[in-house]
């Protein structure tokens, strides 16, 4: 494993994009911030804490889901993946590098949400710790899912549509921005196919908004392992 490469890739691809292409950061923030505003207006401020905690998760998930297009673009259009295949790095190094770069890319948004969260006093030491862990695991699982789908795409013309659909369906539909208890239990389990669902349900529990649904912990762990393993397989490192 070449962790040095993964960190260097994350630094260059994540941090440099923030520095030299800030419009991408604003674009990734626009959807969760719009939802935050709408939820505040519609619920007369009552659900704002759900929207803020969900905003952290929604931001990280939507950035990772957008990476479907990114992963496919690097492979099909820029041929960057091929360049790295013929080096000593493994698909895991490459996927980890991309995943970490998305986490770095989400940082300005995370900082913004942290400021909002502090202003409405939702943080405790325990909830912050839980949130950091959830964001890390969510980044890995959503990036894994995205790279699995991105690897299966053959034509670049399809990827922008797929990433947009994934971003909306797998981020907004789950109980990311609203109380999970508003949904029948079986719907929660169906929605758990999106890694955003267990992350959101657990976050609402750890922040004390809703009871903690412990069954979501193994679901999230298993999904993360499965999606990352699938990504490794579907990345088409050495094509057949």
């Amino acid at each position, binding site marked *: 494993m*070449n962790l*040095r*490469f993964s960190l*260097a*890739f994350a630094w*260059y*691809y994540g941090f*440099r*994009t923030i*520095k*030299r*292409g800030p419009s991408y950061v604003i674009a990734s923030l626009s959807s969760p911030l719009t939802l935050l505003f709408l939820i505040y207006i519609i619920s007369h401020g009552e659900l704002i804490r759900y929207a803020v905690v969900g905003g952290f998760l929604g931001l990280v998930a939507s950035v990772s889901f957008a990476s479907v297009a990114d992963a496919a673009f690097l492979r099909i*259009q*820029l*041929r*960057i993946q*091929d*360049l*790295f*295949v*013929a*080096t*000593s*790095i493994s698909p895991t*190094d490459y996927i980890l590098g991309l995943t970490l770069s998305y986490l770095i890319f989400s940082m300005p948004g995370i900082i913004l949400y942290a400021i909002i969260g502090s202003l409405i006093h939702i943080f405790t030491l325990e909830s912050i710790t839980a949130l950091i862990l959830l964001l890390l695991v969510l980044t890995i699982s959503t990036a894994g899912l995205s790279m699995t789908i991105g690897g299966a795409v053959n034509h670049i013309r399809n990827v922008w549509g797929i990433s947009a659909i994934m971003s909306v369906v797998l981020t907004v539909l789950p109980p990311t921005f609203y109380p999970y208890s508003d949904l029948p239990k079986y719907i929660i389990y169906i929605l758990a196919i999106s890694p955003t669902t267990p992350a959101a349900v657990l976050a609402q529990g750890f922040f004390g908004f809703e009871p903690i649904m412990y069954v979501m912990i193994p679901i999230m762990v298993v999904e993360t392992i499965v999606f990352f393993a699938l990504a490794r397989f579907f990345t088409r490192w*050495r*094509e*057949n």
Partner: protein
Amino acid sequence: MISTKNLSKTYKDGARALDSVTIDIDKRLVSFIGRNGAGKTTLLRILSTQLKPSSGTATVAGYDIMKQPDKIRKKIVSIPQEASTLGVLTPIEHLKLYLIARGFSVLQANEEALKALRELEMYDARNKPSDTLSGGMKRKVFVAMALAANAEITFLDEPTTGLDPVSRFEVWAAIKNLSGNIVLTTHYMEEAQELAEEVVLVDSGKILEKGSVKNLLHRFEGKVRVESLRPDSGDYQIGRTYVKYVKQEDAEDYIRNGYNVRRITLDDLFVLRGVNIEP
């Protein structure tokens, strides 16, 4: 250096890209030349362990492409066809990232990257985001990667496709600076003639012929190519043009009779084999 035996590749859609290719390569700079779709890229991708063959075997730097890909990857650099730079990254960042992928430390990568950029006269552009560079400079970033990596074998897949003539000359000069053995593909005859010690003619997934440019063109010694659009005015047909090869001293007669006279190039080897080289 490279040896293949009955190497074949058929894609999932049934397209046969390579048809039982058996070849030994041991010259410093070898160029595979052929039309688009001839099978050059497929062969290069297989040799640089990016693509698996359907059948056959090959060794690169003494290692088997199927059994020892990791060992091969330590010895080679492979620059894919139409590889593009990441717009937000600068040339030096590209080089450092690539060298770190090859196992260099950050310090070593920085040192080697700067050295390569200086050598290719790209030092002044080292900190410019690559989406502000010209097409030629972007391609030179990849050649600089190969130069900095200092690999035993460098594979370059159509390194100058789509470049203007000035940029192409710049990239050619950069390629000449590379150390170790170089295998490149091209569909530009003049590129193969300018760079390669040995040329391999490829068409329809098969090797037609290989040798030095001088040896391959030996059969045309003292001859020129004459062309005409008049039906049946030549021995070979390229699109609507009829071609034949005549003695140099007869050229003026042909000019008087309305023929165009051209000097012999590697193109003519394809013409002799009935390959339509019309662009």
